[in-house]
């Protein structure tokens, strides 16, 4: 498998681990911002291979787990309209709202369909002219341009039975909010490769300058992660605070200007609620006026009760790295991948879910 298998070579991995052991002296806490990194770290058993001086903290994770309960509740209200077909990425099917999940709605007769691409959702709308098709638009900066392009296409073909429910999340505002809250005690960021593919490194440069925290943009294979850790440790030991790109085959400093243009053409930033972190200003995306005719929330009555996170769930702290999952009283007892309470257990990528699945206690 070109561009993947090379990055799973065990001999190079061994070299990198040796190099990290040689280099690391100062105890450091590194945050992997991205849930796919968390999963990769667990899947390959990377944590146990590192020296004790290096602690990996799992950050805000994935756009699915941080989708607020109220946003799921709105999707669930939508799914109860008989004329509606809900189309969604497979990730969303099990995410719990206040009372139900889309999976349970489907069992109760709702038409909920898993799609691989937002374009498949648009296709579903074309094929079912008598139905109303709503696509649950979730994702960070990586996914939002694709959905924006789908909305542009929907407008071009003048389709009137296709809507999106936007619950997009933006990564830099969340990181900034975490940094400004002084809840974070970390010395380096492992930045998400595919978000960077779109947005480039500018936001990270600002974080490096303002907060003095270095970062490396990282790919998703074990060699990528080990090399990134090596690069971060080298910076930290040499007292540098720059932003480097390890994932050169997938990301550039400037990002994907075409994709960001499409994104900005269709969406505008808005305040957004994050499960576990609360309201973060300018951290979400909503359709611009010109494209409001595709906004499900404008077309349907989607009023739901305000939903709060469970007061005893410590996901907020887990995300900041101040607590680990085992310190939560729900973990493994009440909160399991089958019955998740907080965002970190919701997706297979959440910190708690990854601990639950992969960790050797």
């Amino acid at each position, binding site marked *: *498998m070109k561009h993947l298998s090379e990055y799973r070579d065990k001999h190079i*991995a061994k070299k990198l681990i040796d190099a990290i052991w040689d280099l690391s002296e100062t105890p450091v806490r590194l945050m992997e911002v991205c849930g796919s990194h968390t999963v990769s770290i667990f899947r390959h*058993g990377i944590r146990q291979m590192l020296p004790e001086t290096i602690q990996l903290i799992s950050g805000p994770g994935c756009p*699915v787990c941080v989708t607020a309960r109220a946003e799921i509740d709105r999707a669930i209200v939508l799914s109860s309209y008989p004329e509606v077909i809900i189309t969604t990425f497979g*990730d969303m*099917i099990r995410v719990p709202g206040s009372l139900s999940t889309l*999976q349970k709605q489907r069992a109760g007769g709702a038409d909920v369909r898993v799609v691989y691409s937002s374009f498949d959702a648009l296709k579903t709308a074309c094929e079912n002219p008598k139905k109303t098709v709503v696509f649950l638009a979730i994702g960070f900066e990586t996914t939002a341009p694709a959905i924006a392009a789908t909305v542009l296409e929907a407008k071009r073909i003048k389709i009137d039975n296709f809507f999106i429910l936007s619950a997009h999340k933006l990564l830099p505002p969340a990181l900034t909010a975490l940094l400004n809250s002084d809840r974070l005690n970390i010395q380096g960021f492992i930045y998400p490769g595919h978000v960077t593919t779109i947005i480039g490194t500018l936001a990270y440069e600002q974080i490096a300058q303002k907060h003095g925290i270095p970062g490396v943009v990282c790919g998703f294979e074990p060699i990528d992660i*080990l090399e990134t850790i090596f690069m971060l440790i080298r910076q930290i030991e040499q007292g540098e605070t720059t932003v480097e790109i390890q994932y050169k085959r997938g990301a550039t400093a400037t990002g994907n200007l075409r994709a960001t243009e499409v994104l900005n053409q269709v969406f505008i930033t808005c305040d957004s609620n994050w499960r576990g972190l609360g309201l973060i200003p300018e951290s979400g995306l909503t359709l611009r006026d010109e494209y409001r005719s595709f906004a499900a929330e404008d077309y349907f009555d989607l009023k739901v009760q305000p939903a709060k996170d469970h007061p005893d769930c410590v996901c907020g702290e887990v995300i900041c790295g101040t607590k680990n999952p085992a310190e939560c009283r729900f973990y493994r007892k009440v909160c399991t991948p089958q019955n998740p309470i907080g965002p970190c257990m919701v997706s297979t990528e959440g910190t708690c879910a990854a601990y639950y699945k992969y960790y050797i206690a």
Partner: protein
Amino acid sequence: MVSDKIILDHGSGGRSSQELIEKLFLPRFGNSLLNELNDSAVFELGGAKLAFTTDSFVVDPIFFPGGDIGSLAICGTVNDLSMRGARPSYLSVGFIIEEGFLIKELEQILFSMEKVAFEADIQIVTGDTKVVPKGAADKIFINTSGIGLVPANIDIAGQNARPGDAVLISGTIADHGITILSAREGLFLDSPLKSDASPLNHLVQKMLNTGSEIHVFRDPTRGGLATTLNEIAIQSQVAIDIYEEAIPINESVLAASEILGLDPLYMANEGKLIAIVPQSQAEAVLAAMRETPYGRQAALIGQVKEQNPGKVVMHTTIGGKRIIDMLTGEQLPRIC
């Protein structure tokens, strides 16, 4: 129960299925044979030691690369019997067919059943057909039950794994699961993916003929290799260590799993078996397996250990370790 309704997860062969069995079925039907939760029940009847099993097939799509619902229905039951060391002899077949189903398609299904039955050397000796109104079933469902003789000296069951044993697999993993999911969701325009559906009774006989002391046979169907190994670890109260590098997998299956965000360890197999044998006999058994068409890529993938009973641990290719849990829900293509 976490849910008050049956959801698809309850049929996925993972934790939810387990929960359904433990909380609803066993308290009512439980008996010493059922409680073992093996692929088939083994008991004495009229002086003969018999294995008996049943399975229903509801696969969607009904035709897929490498097989169809008919070949699957024969293979599944033949394999469940074989996993207790039995020689499968007779099968029953029950059809539930939706009104309007094409006779031509039924013939195609029957043809492949006939072919596999011939290959497996079993006979279909009783059957039933029901037709239901349009919409009351999805095209066609098939149930097969089977019976076979178990040689007197054989005791092969999920609870027999012992520390020090070797863990063998008969070939590549995840072929069936990823093929069905891709075909059902139309995920690829074209691909070399192909189900591994095949009857394993001849392979099993070859292995038994080596005279080796085989402790466990299991076919890692729904829930995949990971879930089946967990079941064995729990049933036998042992730990199982496996080596990522040693697990055979087709490149196309691995690639498709990467694209869709799925873990091949949890994808179904329909023509593979796990065998747990004493380490000293592993090479002889492997050699016998590799001489058969369905065991050519057989490999030693792990060891049974004493510490941490009930746990399955994987040694990763790059030298790390991770716990392998059971499947927790139906696997779906994801973007995150």
